[in-house]
């Protein structure tokens, strides 16, 4: 809240509540003062996820494992999509790990308002804290999946199935940041939209399912016909999958212009997401 003198011009108020919302009302100092809350919310969601389950956090591993097995059977054994000499299991695991990072962050963030109406209508704190705690939780879950990926990768490395290149390997970090950013920014925008229009929620689930086929998750960009290449490259996520695979396996077509494009896209969508989220969060409480 702004410090302003009151109409009488004498007292200095510490805060004031006025109609209207600015696009940018986040102060980093205020956000930092809520860091305990952020961690606590993440902890709550993490613990809540696995209460009264048999396998607990192992579910974070079981889901991708089962998905990978299905993909290997369907896409590689039945349909016969080539994997450029890489073991199909590793090839698909790489794609799915990154895809899960994007889709989970996007889906969970876009639920921010709908899932927290109860709290939002009773207590004030910067609403974006909840979205940030979702992001943080998904990064932790991604971390668990990444450990699985590294384990499988190391197994393949020691059995001589793949090569390792440290320089390439470091590329995973910018790729993770950009992917998470695009998911987060998009999620913020959709969290506002789904709160206002509930019918978008089912549409969004469909779109995210279809989007996976457009992204090179279980195939490489080189398999895309020449005349559709430009279309595939327009998708800012495509390059990220190519780069992620390149970081581990050294295969695929990568170029830094594309990566810059993805990065720029991420910056724009994150800013846009934060602005819309801020602008709308007060209004949404009235209609939720």
């Amino acid at each position, binding site marked *: 809240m702004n410090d302003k003198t009151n109409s009488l011009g004498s*007292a200095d108020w510490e805060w004031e509540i006025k109609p209207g919302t600015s696009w940018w009302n986040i102060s980093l100092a205020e956000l930092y003062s809520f860091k305990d809350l952020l961690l606590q919310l993440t902890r709550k969601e993490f613990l809540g996820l696995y209460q009264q389950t048999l396998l607990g956090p192992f579910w974070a591993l079981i889901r991708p494992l089962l998905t990978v097995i299905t993909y290997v059977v369907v896409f590689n054994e039945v349909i016969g999509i080539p994997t450029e000499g890489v073991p199909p299991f590793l090839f698909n695991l790489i794609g799915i790990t990154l895809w899960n990072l994007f889709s989970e962050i996007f889906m969970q963030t876009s639920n921010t308002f709908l899932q927290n109406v109860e709290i939002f209508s009773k207590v*004030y704190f910067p609403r974006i804290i909840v979205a940030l705690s979702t992001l943080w939780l998904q990064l932790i879950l991604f971390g668990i999946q990444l450990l699985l990926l590294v384990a499988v990768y190391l197994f393949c490395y020691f059995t001589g199935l793949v090569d390792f290149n440290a320089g390439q390997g470091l590329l995973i970090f910018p790729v993770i940041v950009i992917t998470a950013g695009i998911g987060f920014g998009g999620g913020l925008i959709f969290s506002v939209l789904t709160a206002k229009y509930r019918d978008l929620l089912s549409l969004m689930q469909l779109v995210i399912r279809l989007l996976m086929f457009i992204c090179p998750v279980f195939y490489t960009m080189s398999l895309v016909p020449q005349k559709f290449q430009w279309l595939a490259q327009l998708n800012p996520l495509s390059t990220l999958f190519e780069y992620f695979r390149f970081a581990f396996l050294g295969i695929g077509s990568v170029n830094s212009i594309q990566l810059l494009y993805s990065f720029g896209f991420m910056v724009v969508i994150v800013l846009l997401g934060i602005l819309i989220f801020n602008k709308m969060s007060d209004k949404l409480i009235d209609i939720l």
Partner: protein
Amino acid sequence: MSDIAIQAENISKLYRLGTIGSGSLRRDMQSWWERNALKKENPNQYIRGGKKVDNSEVIWALKNVDFEIKVGEALGIIGHNGAGKSTLLKILSRIVKPTEGIVRGRGSISSLLEVGTGFHSELTGRENIFISGHILGMKKSEISRKFDEIVDFAGVEAFIDTPVKRYSSGMYVRLAFAVAAHLEPDILIIDEVLAVGDAEFQKKCLGKMNEASSKSGRTIIFVSHNLQAISNLCSKALWLDKGNVCARGNAKTVVNQYLSTLQKQNWIKEFKTMTEAPGNDFIRVLYTELTPHFVDALSVVDIRTPLTVKFRFYNANDGILLAVGVHLFTISGECIFDVSHDPLLYKKGIIEGECHIPGDFLNDGSYYISLIFVEDSSKQLYYYEECLSFEVADFRENINWYGKWMGYVRPKFPVITRQTEIHE
């Protein structure tokens, strides 16, 4: 000036009635397209049946509300349901924005609009104390420091590592309130928390609030339907009605003003003609009235107030032995008393009567009176049910307890105690 904690100027809040927007993207886009591209009227103004939705179908939940609270003051907010009390609290808590006006203040605010905000039913009591504490604005170190105190206040030591979904509802509420009760903001906003828990726990809560305002010098804003609690705990009160400020000032005065308008609803019934008057071929009741004899200048019927029931009726039969009985019932239908007199011989014509109910006799609550007309002390001529209804407000002095006083009646029989032995 600097001793003012909150200053609200012209706070107004507008809500639209019915669904806001259409809730469907297709219809909103259609509306937008028709309005902006085709410059036509919004087709969705016409909802089912072709009826036009008037733009004036809006409601001012609050209209030009002004007030100030000094540091350390406790402000009670009263009013009917839908008067805008909760909206005001939500604005002060920064949950919703006002449509107009400005609130300024100094000091940290914690609001307690429900108990158990942010509780996760799958997690243990211990986890939930931390989660709820953080959501309500406590720091981690603060919660850790007060942890034992909170558990002790809630009385759930044995269950602290059990998921709260297995708690009894009482335990759940106690734990939730205990967390909130240990908040230490400069300004505390509380909505109807006293509606929860048993009498014993309510007592504890009110004690805690009293301590917060009187000893710790905390500013408190408090909404409650428990008017006794308001007039005893708060120094100032604000009475809202349909979004407007009806009265504000000294808590006891405002509460009494509020009560007296509540009460003057059904104190007199008079009928001009015989045919209008309720009754039958024997009796026509022309007039009934309840007259309170107020103790002080404040016109509120409380437990101290003596009441007189007056009635006038037409007797159609000449020369009968007639008696009138007054029945007093609680709102839930239990009869408190049935008083009458020895039958008297009356001629055809108008008869008047009255019954005096002493003060310090009825407990607080809602009551109604019925009149019975009996011939020869055996034959019922007419029974006039629920002819008058009234409410008796509570009144307490120097008592540190605000729960419901037990019993249908509350007479002032003396209770005498004496010490007969002293054991050192």
